[in-house]
């Protein structure tokens, strides 16, 4: 037994022992140490055959070039968006389990229910957005367009299902993302052999679909309802290290896989009309290309929209900042899935969201957010219970409000909203917007209330409150006490670790002044809200501004005065825009002033500061004491600002040269000159150039007053250029740039100003040939011969030599000099290396390398260009770059989108390029899918998926004839490409598409009907069908016939004069001229005479029109649970079936049994004359067959006498003998002749030989003679020469 268990000995293949052995073996063979067989035995590797060598070289080159892709500019951002991982598979295959396992593997958190995309940090440089894809074909199509990686789950116990193949085909059409197969249910196999076989079978089938060698992952079995940890870990490793190739569509279009949706509609509008169009905001990572504000987007399943606003938010699931460590710590393993109710703490424009990290996340982190989360985690009662029990004081002396009070006040949220809330388990910002339209008081109140609600729901507004507290003055502390107490109440419910939290926060806040400042900004934005409420004006813009300021607190300088000033300026701006009675001009003035602010006197600045401080002091009290104090303060504030504005205006007026103050006449004189001057001034004032062009400036400039400028940016859209624009609205449209104030080019100094623009002028140092040469001399002039150790000095000018000497002298004294010398030496070395590289690498570079290098250079430039600018400014230039977390506002969204919102269905926002929102005729190359059972019929409505869109349209199929004519086809060919044309959205050429008959329900067969590619886009189209016009001859002359029945009037005939016609029997002809009667008849000439029974026809081509039918598939608008039941226009066949209308068949088209009559042929009659002329062979043999010869005509047989017989026999014998004799004689003669001929031939040969020899001799002699002659002649020539 034991011997069986022993392992067999395995020979060592590596390690010192193996090496030693190998060496010994080689020594035994007396081969020395040479291991390389090529060196050891060069003969064996010598070139045997040049042809084979050439072939193998060719082959390697082929393989090498096959690997090349067209180089593209790498436009991936530095911080790429999360990779979209689509987990796809038929139902019950284990998709959700896999996602849960993966999330747990990466983040150590467990998500119970997964709705919508889940974003996680999977590594130091990679994030994943995992999303599940069901079997609804709509979802499959949409997700295939945004997927970077597809995890294709296959139930091994069942095998492949149709959905898998459908999804693969969808992927193929819309650019092939990376696909990885995952086999599940492998534990259902009893026998190992069967398992192996199945794996192999499935693997090979998978390979044929994807590519040979595609990765297929095996999940062997479940443990406690989850996949095995090790396997999931391995799968996760595969995903994190995977590389992706850019897909054309995805890289050229921006897109967002939304992970959050908010309804921003005015509740009042919803109340009055529940079906009103909604305004929603959607959140998600921007992917693909840059997205610009106000651009067109398409939401698959909803429709086309214009982006009404877009802003970027801090990344909710950011990558770890420092990358020192090998792996992520627990805090950095973030997960973000708002639709599933998971995410970090998230501030945004109009709400604050909190989410709970894992139960053991952030353990060693001590920070306000962390504590908050901890406190929330450790609460015991449910949110609902807390909601019910919570009390809140609005004002210090009012009675606390409970949730029931709120309900009583009729501030109930819309029902569908509530549903959503319950699902996501988060407090939505709905409540804040809920009272916007009511009076400012309630707004204020509501703000407070919502804050408290959130506070109690475990949101982080509480934190904001706390931070506010930190900034409060003593006065405020009293007011705060109430709140503090209330907080403590709350804390009593929770664990006892809270005191630490409560204590620490103040200290923390005090220590981090910056954050406090940020909070200030927040406060100010809050105030703006309230003021806007006062004015009764919608203040979305102001809110936007406020939040922007709030969002980028880090950007703010810590300098207090500066900041406060900027805040003040901003507030002024906000108020002027909000108060409503401020005109554009005023706004203008203030904006202008902002630049000039810096030039204000110091006193003014001081006073300003004072004001700000005062305001700052008043602010907290306003917030705390609420309603009563609020208005007064506000009035104060507004008056302050008005004062300020007035001051500014005054200032401006002073500044402006008497434009407004002086009389009208004065004002009018030489206006154009002034304008010109102004323009020139503007031209010269360089920093204002961008402002001049684009109006406002959003970015922080290098100018001294840049800060204030930024605060004003984005608020005022009315600007000077517009005003100017009106002046010159009707002036001359000319592109020439006329010289307003020409220089006097006769002056020497003016001439000198452009002296260096010419080659004759002075050159820059790096381009001046003489200088460059000198420099090179210096660098390369002296070198050291390494072999001999000699040092060669280059020629150096007298002054450089002097310098050298000086330097040497100095070197002894100055150690710094040594450093510089060292640097110089390094520089020299580098330059030499460059030279060497250039010399030796240049030859190798191919066209491909050059192209690649060019692309790389461009990519570097793209990266570097805007790197140093902050995001606010960058966004203006580039658009929002991929990788940003953005919030997009969209207006006029159908209410069903919100009402029937189902987080399980992905919401994709696909950006559209220019004029991709337009419609036109699209022509494409199409092929019916080989697995689709039917062929497709022209004019049957069908659903296409092209670009981002899914839509139903009516295509016409056509085929292109050899002459370029596009001929209509009734049906698509079975196994061939054909053209298809439809009226629909314009999509760039080269985009792939697929067609399906219906997206509703489950069809038994393969659903993808056709695939292809877009070829052409146009606004008109020419597809023709054949039309045969028939007519009948009614009068026939020789080759001319009169034909009727083809046309109805002479006019029609006139149109077709000269057209080619033909008879069915093949006689060709031409239409000549119309006849007077009957109407529509014409004269035609043919190549032969017609018969009255002939049918004449003309082949014409009739253009067909394409129905302008474009119906986007609005599957996302269907009610929850019915989203896969969208059905559009039905085909004629379906309608007939539904209504029981049978097709009326053409009677002629019906098949009948064929009855064939017996054919009778007449006997052939040949005219007598012809018969006579025919040769005998062909003559009809009319003679009757010889009958029986009558007996009397028959000759009798001869019977000979014996004697006669004897004679006859003798004669016979004699003749035989004679003939024999003759034959013999002939033979003999023949033989003799032959002999004679042979002898003769021999003789002849001998003679020839003799002659030949003779001739040979003769020629030799002749040749010798000739040579002699030649020699002599040469000699003679030489002699002559001599």
């Amino acid at each position, binding site marked *: 037994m034991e011997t069986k268990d022993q392992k067999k000995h395995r020979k060592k293949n590596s390690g010192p022992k193996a090496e030693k052995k190998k060496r010994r073996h080689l020594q035994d063979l007396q081969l020395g140490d040479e291991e390389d067989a090529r060196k050891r035995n060069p003969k064996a590797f010598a070139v045997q055959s040049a042809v084979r060598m050439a072939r193998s070289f060719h082959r390697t080159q082929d393989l090498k070039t096959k690997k090349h892709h067209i180089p593209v500019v790498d436009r991936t951002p530095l911080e790429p968006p999360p990779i979209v991982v689509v987990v796809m598979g038929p139902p019950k295959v284990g998709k959700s389990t896999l996602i849960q396992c993966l999330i747990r593997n990466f983040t150590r958190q467990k998500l119970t229910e997964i709705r919508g995309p889940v974003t996680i940090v999977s590594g130091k440089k990679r994030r994943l957005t995992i999303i599940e894809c069901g079997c609804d074909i709509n979802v499959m199509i949409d997700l295939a367009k945004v997927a970077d990686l597809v995890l294709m789950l296959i139930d091994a116990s069942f095998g492949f299902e149709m959905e898998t193949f459908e999804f693969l085909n969808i992927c193929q059409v819309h650019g092939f993302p990376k696909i990885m197969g995952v086999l599940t249910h492998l534990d259902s196999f009893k026998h190992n052999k069967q398992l192996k076989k199945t794996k192999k079978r499935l693997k090979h089938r998978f390979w044929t679909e994807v590519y040979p060698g595609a990765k297929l992952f095996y999940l062997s079995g479940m443990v406690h309802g989850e996949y095995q940890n090790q396997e999931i870990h391995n799968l996760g490793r595969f995903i994190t290290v995977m590389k992706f190739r850019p897909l054309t569509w995805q890289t050229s279009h921006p897109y967002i896989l939304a992970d959050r949706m908010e309804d921003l509609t005015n509740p009042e509008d919803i109340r009055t009309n529940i079906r009103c169009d909604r305004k929603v905001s959607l959140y998600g990572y921007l992917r693909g290309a840059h997205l*610009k504000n106000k651009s067109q987007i398409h939401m698959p399943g909803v429709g086309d929209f214009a982006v009404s606003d877009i802003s970027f938010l801090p990344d909710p699931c950011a990558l770890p900042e420092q990358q020192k460590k090998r792996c992520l710590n627990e805090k950095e393993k973030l997960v973000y899935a708002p639709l599933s109710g998971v995410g970090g703490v998230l501030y945004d424009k109009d709400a604050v969201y909190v989410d709970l990290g894992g139960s053991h996340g952030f353990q060693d982190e001590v920070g306000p957010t962390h504590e908050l989360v901890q406190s929330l985690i450790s609460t015991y009662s449910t949110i609902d219970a807390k909601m019910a029990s919570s009390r809140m004081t609005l004002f210090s002396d009012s009675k606390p409000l409970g949730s029931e009070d709120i309900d009583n006040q009729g501030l109930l949220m819309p029902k569908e909203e509530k549903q959503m809330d319950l699902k996501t388990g988060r407090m939505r910002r709905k409540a804040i917007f809920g009272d916007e339209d009511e009076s400012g008081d309630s707004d204020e109140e509501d703000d407070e209330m919502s804050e408290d609600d959130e506070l109690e729901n475990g949101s982080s507004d509480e934190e904001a409150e706390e931070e506010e507290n930190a900034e409060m003055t003593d006065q405020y502390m009293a007011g705060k006490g109430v709140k503090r107490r209330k907080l403590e109440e709350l804390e009593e419910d929770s664990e006892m670790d809270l005191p630490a939290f409560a204590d620490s926060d103040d200290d923390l806040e005090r220590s981090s002044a910056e954050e406090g400042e940020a909070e200030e900004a927040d406060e100010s934005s809050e105030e703006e809200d309230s003021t806007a409420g006062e004015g009764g004006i919608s203040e979305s813009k102001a809110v936007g501004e406020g939040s922007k300021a709030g969002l980028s607190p880090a950007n703010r300088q810590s300098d207090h005065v500066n900041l406060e000033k900027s805040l003040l300026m901003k507030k002024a701006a906000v108020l002027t825009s909000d108060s409503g009675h401020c005109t554009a001009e005023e706004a203008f003035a203030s904006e202008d002033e902002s630049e000039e602010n810096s030039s204000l006197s110091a006193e003014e600045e001081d006073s300003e500061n004072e004001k700000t401080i005062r305001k700052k002091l008043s602010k907290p009290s306003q917030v705390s004491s609420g309603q009563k104090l609020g208005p007064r303060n506000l009035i104060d504030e507004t008056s302050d600002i008005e004062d300020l504005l007035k001051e500014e205006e005054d200032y401006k007026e002073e500044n402006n040269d008497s434009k407004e103050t002086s009389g009208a006449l004065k004002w009018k004189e030489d206006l154009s000159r002034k304008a010109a001057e102004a323009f020139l001034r503007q031209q010269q004032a360089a920093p204002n*150039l961008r402002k*001049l062009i684009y109006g406002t400036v959003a970015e922080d400039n290098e100018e001294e007053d840049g800060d204030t400028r930024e605060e004003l940016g984005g608020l005022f859209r009315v600007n000077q250029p517009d005003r100017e624009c009106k002046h*010159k609205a009707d002036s001359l449209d000319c592109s020439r740039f006329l010289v307003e104030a020409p220089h006097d080019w006769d002056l020497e100094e003016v001439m000198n100003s452009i002296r260096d623009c010419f080659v004759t002028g002075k050159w820059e140092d790096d381009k001046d040939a003489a200088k460059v040469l000198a420099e090179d001399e210096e660098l390369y002039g002296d070198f050291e011969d390494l072999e001999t150790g000699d040092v060669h000095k280059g020629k150096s000018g007298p002054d450089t030599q002097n310098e050298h000497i000086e330097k040497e002298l100095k070197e002894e004294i100055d150690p710094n000099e040594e450093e510089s010398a060292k640097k110089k030496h390094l520089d020299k070395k580098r330059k030499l290396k460059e030279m060497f590289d250039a010399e030796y690498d240049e030859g190798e570079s191919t066209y491909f390398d050059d192209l690649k290098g060019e692309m790389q250079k461009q990519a570097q430039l793209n990266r570097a260009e805007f790197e140093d600018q902050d995001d606010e400014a960058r966004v*203006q230039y580039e658009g929002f770059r991929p990788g940003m977390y953005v919030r997009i506002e969209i207006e006029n969204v159908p209410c069903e989108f919100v009402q029937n919102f189902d987080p399980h269905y992905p919401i994709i926002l696909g950006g559209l390029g220019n*004029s991709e929102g337009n419609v036109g005729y699209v022509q494409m190359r199409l092929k019916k899918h080989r697995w689709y059972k039917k062929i497709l019929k022209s004019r049957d409505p069908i659903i296409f998926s092209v670009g981002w869109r899914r839509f139903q349209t009516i295509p016409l199929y056509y085929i292109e004839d050899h002459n370029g004519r596009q001929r209509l086809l009734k049906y698509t060919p079975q196994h061939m490409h054909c053209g298809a044309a439809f009226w629909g959205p314009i999509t760039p050429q080269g985009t792939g598409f697929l067609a399906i008959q219906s997206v509703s329900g489950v069809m038994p067969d393969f659903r993808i009907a056709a695939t292809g590619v877009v070829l052409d886009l146009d606004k008109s189209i020419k597809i023709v069908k054949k039309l045969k016009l028939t007519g009948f001859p009614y009068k026939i002359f020789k080759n001319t016939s009169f034909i009727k029945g083809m046309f109805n009037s002479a006019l029609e005939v006139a149109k077709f004069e000269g057209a080619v016609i033909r008879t069915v029997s093949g006689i060709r002809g031409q239409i000549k001229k119309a006849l007077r009667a009957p109407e529509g008849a014409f004269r035609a000439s043919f190549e032969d005479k017609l018969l009255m029974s002939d049918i004449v026809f003309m082949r014409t081509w009739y253009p067909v029109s394409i129905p302008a039918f474009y119906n986007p598939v609005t599957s996302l608008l269907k009610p929850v649970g019915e989203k896969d039941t969208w059905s559009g226009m039905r085909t004629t066949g379906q309608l007939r079936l539904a209504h029981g209308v049978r097709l009326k068949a053409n009677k002629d088209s019906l098949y009948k049994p064929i009855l064939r009559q017996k054919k009778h042929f007449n006997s052939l009659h040949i005219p007598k004359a012809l018969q006579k002329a025919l040769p005998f062979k062909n003559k009809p043999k009319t003679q009757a067959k010889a009958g029986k010869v009558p007996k009397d005509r028959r000759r009798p047989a001869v019977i000979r006498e014996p004697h006669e017989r004897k004679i006859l026999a003798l004669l016979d014998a004699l003749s035989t003998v004679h003939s024999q004799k003759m034959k013999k004689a002939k033979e003999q003669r023949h033989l003799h002749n032959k002999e004679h001929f042979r002898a003769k031939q021999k003789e002849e040969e001998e003679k020839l030989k003799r002659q030949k020899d003779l001739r040979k001799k003769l020629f030799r002699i002749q040749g010798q003679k000739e040579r002699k002659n030649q020699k002599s002649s040469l000699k003679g020539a030489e002699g002559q020469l001599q």
Partner: protein
Amino acid sequence: MATQANSLSYAGCNFLRQRLVLSTLSGRPVKIRKIRARDDNPGLRDFEASFIRLLDKITNGSRIEINQTGTTLYYQPGLLYGGSVEHDCSVLRGIGYYLESLLCLAPFMKHPLKIVLRGVTNDQVDPSVDVLKATALPLLKQFGIDGESFELKIVRRGMPPGGGGEVVFSCPVRKVLKPIQLTDPGKIKRVRGMAYSVRVSPQMANRIVDSARSILNKFIPDIYIYTDHMKGVNSGKSPGFGLSLVAETTSGTFLSAELASNPQGQGEAVLPEDLGRNCARLLLEEIYRGGCVDSTNQSLALLLMTLGQQDVSKVLLGPLSPYTIEFLRHLKSFFQIMFKIETKPCGEELKGGDKVLMTCVGIGFSNLSKTLK
């Protein structure tokens, strides 16, 4: 459809060409109101109508609506079609007026454009055909629009007011454009020019040449000004003469200036010597402004940068002309693109006035008209 929603609206007839060209390229409809609404002679002028007709000829499926008085224009662009086209331009403006817009549109046609334009080749208002040939064509080549069929040929010269000139312009189509980095204007290595005279004494051209050289010789010796005297049927219908000068730099930048004589019967007679001198001074002004692109072609360069792939393009310009400034605003409203504008002060160097460095990221435009074979 959504097309109605993203339509843009403007007032006034100024910058009509820009608006229509950008509308055609971006596919966004445009409505222009109040065209000379307060004028005694309201509505579109002949040359504008002719321009609209030209647009109609080179596009397919455009919808143009003009009201009774011609004060309101609605233009819904179709797809650029191209092909062989002939167009009689209005003699009120030069062919340059039409050609400038065609230069913007021609690379994005379905079929390569081959157009015959008839009208005024050289006038005092618009950039002449000579200048466009010398400056705009090399500029387009920088963007990868090149080939045998890319040419601009002046068959006949026509001066205002009679016109009678003829120009053949042909341009290949491209699917995408290359990004450019034109930051170094180089140094001017030669000056070339064309002094033309039609229906006047051929001696005029020579007089122009001499006077222009007298000024330019102070800067650079490599000057050659061709004289072009057209006769008979090639000389158009009105007399006139003029000069166009082009300075070429070591890095392939072309700067130009031109002047033409007053049209017959309008203004005083111009001495050819004065004209030559003034034109030379204009060229010096242009050199003073500098940049990598001529001041007339600034907008063309910026447009083609905008229509590039999503890569960074840079160009160094002289001071921006009012036309360019308006063009930048239009680019922003049509394509949502903003240029990064950096001023490069001239400093101590003797290289003319301040320069402006314009940087942008292309919008990733691709020619939607071109057929995929």
